[in-house]
């Protein structure tokens, strides 16, 4: 199933939801999204999204040095990010319900 177009609309929401559960670094967040079922998600899309959410103030970031390699940049959610997550989650739920209702109403 090609979910690329659908993904674009929900990337912010899903990234916020994943980070809300636990702070994470870029590839870790990609992995959580993929493990959650979004197997087609591109890592560059996720990193770009993280950067945009950070610029918008929805995420905070901090660097964790590594002993064996390059440092990792962790992202955590901010109060602004939580508000955005709540709003977008509500939007998504009502949108998904609407779409589902329409789809179920159509005779197969």
């Amino acid at each position, binding site marked *: 199933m090609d979910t690329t177009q659908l993904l674009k609309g929900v*990337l912010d929401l899903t990234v916020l939801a994943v980070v809300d559960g636990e702070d994470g*670094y*870029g*590839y870790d967040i*990609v992995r959580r999204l993929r493990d959650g079922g979004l197997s087609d998600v*591109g*890592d*560059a*899309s*996720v*990193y*770009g*999204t993280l*950067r*945009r959410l*950070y*610029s918008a103030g929805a995420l905070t970031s901090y*660097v964790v040095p*590594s002993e*064996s*390699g*390059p*440092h*990792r*940049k962790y992202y955590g959610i901010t109060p602004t990010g939580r508000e955005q997550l709540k709003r977008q989650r509500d939007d998504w739920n009502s949108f998904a319900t609407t779409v589902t209702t329409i789809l179920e109403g159509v005779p197969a």
Partner: protein
Amino acid sequence: MSTLDIAPEVAEFVSAVRTHLADLDPEEQREILDGLEADLDELVTEQGAAALGDPAAYAAELRQAAGLEPAQDQSAVRRRAAGAVVTDLLDASRARFDRLVDAVPGDLGAVLAWLRPVWWVLRGWVAVQALDELTGVYQARLFPEIGDLGTLPLLLVVLASVLLGAGKVWRGNPRHPGYRLSLLVLNTAAVIGLVYAVSAVTDEVSHRYDRGYESGFAQGVNAGTENANDGRQAGLYRDGIWVSNIYPYDAQGRPLVGVQLFDQVGEPINVITQPEYEELLIDDNGNPIDENGNLIDPSQPQLPRIFYPWTNGATQLFNVFPLPSRIQSSEELSPTAFTEEERPRIGAFPQPVVPRVSLPGISTGAR
């Protein structure tokens, strides 16, 4: 950050991505690239280097997701804007020029159009003159020759210039702002070069005939007085300051008169003298005074101090020191100076004595 433990392909990939984001400001670049090495390193560890893909596409995906404008769009917009400005400027100048030409009675436009090929030939000629100037010793001549190639470069460059003028070289859009601007710059350089080249060549042609006379005259003037160095840097200098006289002292520090100086190959060390004028002292009211404080009559011309050479009976010698001098009304050397009443004198040394000097084991004729 330590980069030691990153797989080389990751480092290379990140660096390639960075070049595709080079138009972003440094802060944006840092934000978007920070931590990327660690993330990609983990990706490669998990899935192998093949998972990296194309850095350009990767950078474009990063950019799009981050909400940053694609690079090529931005620079293309800027390029188009700059091009449009240049085109407008050039068009406006051309329109102004056309109005000027139209304002002149008669069909000046047709004359100018007819003259264009003449200009194409001329600018080719100027270019070869410049080439001649840049490649070794420049010799002003009507048909410049480059090295062993003779006048072949002249023919080729003039041909190229004519073809360029006739529009046979540039295959692109003749209204492309870059092309028009390049032509403008080259033609302007050619106009400036034309002034120099024409003056150099006409000087050369008009001077060729009397050069023989001039060089003979110069030899006559220089003979016997100095080994003329064509004037430039001739004579003796100390720390870049011109030396007009030398005051020698012996090892005991006593003044010496009549010391002959020669250089390492036995050539005389000549000074070249010039008339010297005393620096005028000025009193509180701005009037010139002598060293005794007496007012000098400003209507009287200031007299120069003239240095005279020693002689060996046959030749005047400017390598024997100190040179005698006297204040006289003329700046010319007088052949009878030493028989006149106010004859040239050595005068006082700048210092009556200087400290003794010695070197161990070197005899200086000391008592």
